[in-house]
């Protein structure tokens, strides 16, 4: 079972790297889904099946699809791949990696002290649910407002886009 964790981890890593380095937006999104699914597996292995399900349903299912819609709308097809290649010269990786790689190594070093094991206990949807609508009730309300704010904002931005589009037509 542990090996499953590592396989998922490697899959997640690899697909994520492909997301970040990809040139074709649609492909990158597919890789992102792969990465998210791998993480979902890990969630499952960590004893969080509810989180794993949400990861698949909401993240991979809803958010990434939203991305895909926009990619379609903006026609980020083959033509943009060439442009991406032009924008993504290899030398551009140097400066960012100069920071992120040491950061990664430093973090890994700092976190790998005496080992801590995870509990290995499953926290099921029921527990989560009781917590969520118990003590976290206010937070859930807030999350709702958060989504409302996003809704209003996106509505405003998107409506204008649509109306402007119509004018153009």
């Amino acid at each position, binding site marked *: 079972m542990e090996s499953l*964790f590592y396989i998922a*981890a490697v899959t997640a*890593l690899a697909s*994520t790297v492909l*997301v*970040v380095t990809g040139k074709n*937006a649609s492909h*990158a999104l597919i890789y*992102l889904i792969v*990465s*998210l699914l791998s993480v979902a597996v*890990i*969630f499952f*292995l*960590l*004893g*969080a099946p*509810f*989180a794993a399900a949400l*990861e698949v349903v*909401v993240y991979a299912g*809803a*958010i*990434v699809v*939203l*991305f895909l*819609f*926009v990619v379609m*709308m*903006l026609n*980020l097809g083959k033509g*943009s791949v060439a442009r*991406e290649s032009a*924008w*993504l010269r290899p030398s551009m*990786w140097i400066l*960012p*990696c100069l920071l992120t790689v040491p950061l*990664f190594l430093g973090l890994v070093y700092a*976190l790998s002290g005496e*080992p*801590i*094991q*995870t*509990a*290995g206990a*499953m*926290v099921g949807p029921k*527990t*989560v649910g009781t*917590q*969520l609508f118990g003590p*976290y009730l206010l*937070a859930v309300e807030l*999350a709702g407002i958060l*989504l409302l704010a*996003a809704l209003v904002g*996106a509505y405003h931005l*998107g409506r*204008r886009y649509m109306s402007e589009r119509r004018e153009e037509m």
Partner: protein
Amino acid sequence: MNFALSIPLEHVFVLAVALFCIGLTGVLVRRNVMFVLMSLEVMMNACGLAFVAAGARWAQADGQIMFMFILALAAAEVAVALGIVLQLSRRFDSLDVDSANEMHS
């Protein structure tokens, strides 16, 4: 039915950190705003992973709950962000973040 594994926490966290750093690198490197947003999603996902892992350490639901808030957050952010992307592509005729560079000292 307990599939939960007892694995070293730092291994999960190394994965989370790796995802986080990859995402960060993506933000630092990519010029196409879509990819930048994807990188942000990666980073956010890394946070979710970290929370779930931390929750797993204590066998508490709080980690997962935080993960759910992160989901909500990601969704909200993506919604607004994509709205902005649409406007960007219209007003700047480009998704290149460097082209949106009219303000500087």
